[in-house]
């Protein structure tokens, strides 16, 4: 997958390992989760809506990669393995994070 962000400076930092959608990646200490993810991929999440119509079974409005980077637009929320939300632009990356770009609640009706 192509990286969206491009590192220009401050690349001499210790590595940090995390898992994104099951794939192990290496980021740098001090990265926000957003930078960690977007230097390996081109999106963080998928919009829930297709156009302004009620949500289609498979939303096709498109994938999103954040917008404001200052905690205001709320378009960079991603999920941990336990289903907790993290705002990628304002969360520092940590070793061992397991992150999903897909909503876990899709299977609610079937879980005990």
């Amino acid at each position, binding site marked *: 997958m192509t990286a969206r962000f491009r590192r220009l400076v401050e690349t001499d930092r210790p590595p940090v390992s995390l898992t994104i959608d099951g794939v192990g990646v290496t980021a740098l200490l001090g990265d926000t989760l957003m930078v960690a993810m977007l230097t390996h991929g081109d999106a963080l999440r998928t919009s829930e809506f297709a156009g302004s119509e009620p949500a289609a079974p498979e939303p096709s409005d498109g994938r999103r990669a954040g917008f404001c980077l200052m905690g205001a637009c709320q378009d960079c929320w991603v999920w941990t393995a336990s*289903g907790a*939300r993290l705002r990628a632009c304002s969360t520092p990356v940590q070793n061992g994070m397991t992150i999903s770009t897909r909503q876990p609640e899709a299977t609610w009706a079937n879980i005990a």
Partner: protein
Amino acid sequence: MTQIHQSDVAIIGGGLMGCSAAFFLRQRGMSVTVLETDKVGRQASGTNFGNVRRQGRPIFQLPLANRAIRIWRDSPQLLGSDVEYLQSGHIRVCFRERPENIGKMEEYAALAREEGLDLELLSANALREKFPWLGPDVLAGSYSATDGHANPRLAAPAFARAAARLGASIVEDTKIVHAEKVGEDFRLTAEDGRQFAAPILLITAGAWAGKIAGWFGEEIPLTPRAPTMSVTEPVPYAIAPAVGVMTPEEVETVYFRQVARGNIVLGGSTRAASYPDDYRSYVLPQNTMTQFEHLRRLAPALANLQVIRVWSGIEGYTDDALPIMGPSAKVSGLFHAFGFSGSGFQIGPGVGETMAELIATGATDIPLEHYAVTRFTK
């Protein structure tokens, strides 16, 4: 000379009751003017939870609720617009420490069946099999397959537009500051001096109605309260029924529903005061917190969700939490339908149709004796 706007029926209050009454009065061929201080459906009608729930209502109210459910089902054809009504079921549960509620649910279900409302009683295990997101503290439940929910922001304005299409006069931004009966007519004066007259006056002004009825000698105490409402981020649509808790403790009365777009609407827990004179209501953060606390007991899986907005509204409560509905005891031609005490949304269209029937024909089969104004004015 000020021109007087004349019609057969004047309605003060453009909420769900007033707008649906106007719609059904027009169906019966009467000319109607709805007078609304702000915009139609913006107060209690537009800010409530959106429960289209029959179960849990007093048994004597079920005929009215049954009448309403038929209108909700027909609403797309009747109104020509979608008010997001979903007949997706309603589940009422009780918590472990209140086992006495099981007996009450059984008793209620037996009586409700006689009124045409079928309820399925479910044990804790059966409940969790059917609704796996319910928490371990849930002891039992009563499921109504034919209840559901709708979008309160859309319902009253849709009735208003449909009434207007049939020829009703919907007059917004018009605060009535004086009303009296002059000869055969009620004379209503707006803040800016405009005048309206009609031989029949229906008061459907919610939390503001007590004051208006007082102009006609029927001073009715209403307590303005503010519901605690929240909505989450959208998540995949997986929860069909509206869910609520049966408990005598207000703080535990949390309820939720998922809309088709995916957001989960939360209501219940402690209500706050509201301020009808200022047209203001506020969500108190401490109530949001108790709402979250009891929601986590009800459905622990919701704990991860983000709440993105809270709101409230202005609801008029009577002392016995039952509405005032029917003719005035003092002034002929005057009718009341208000004080729905936070439980008016489901029955709303039924109230409108019943009041239209009562006004147009002088009678209705819907039992109204429990709602008589005289219980407060004796």
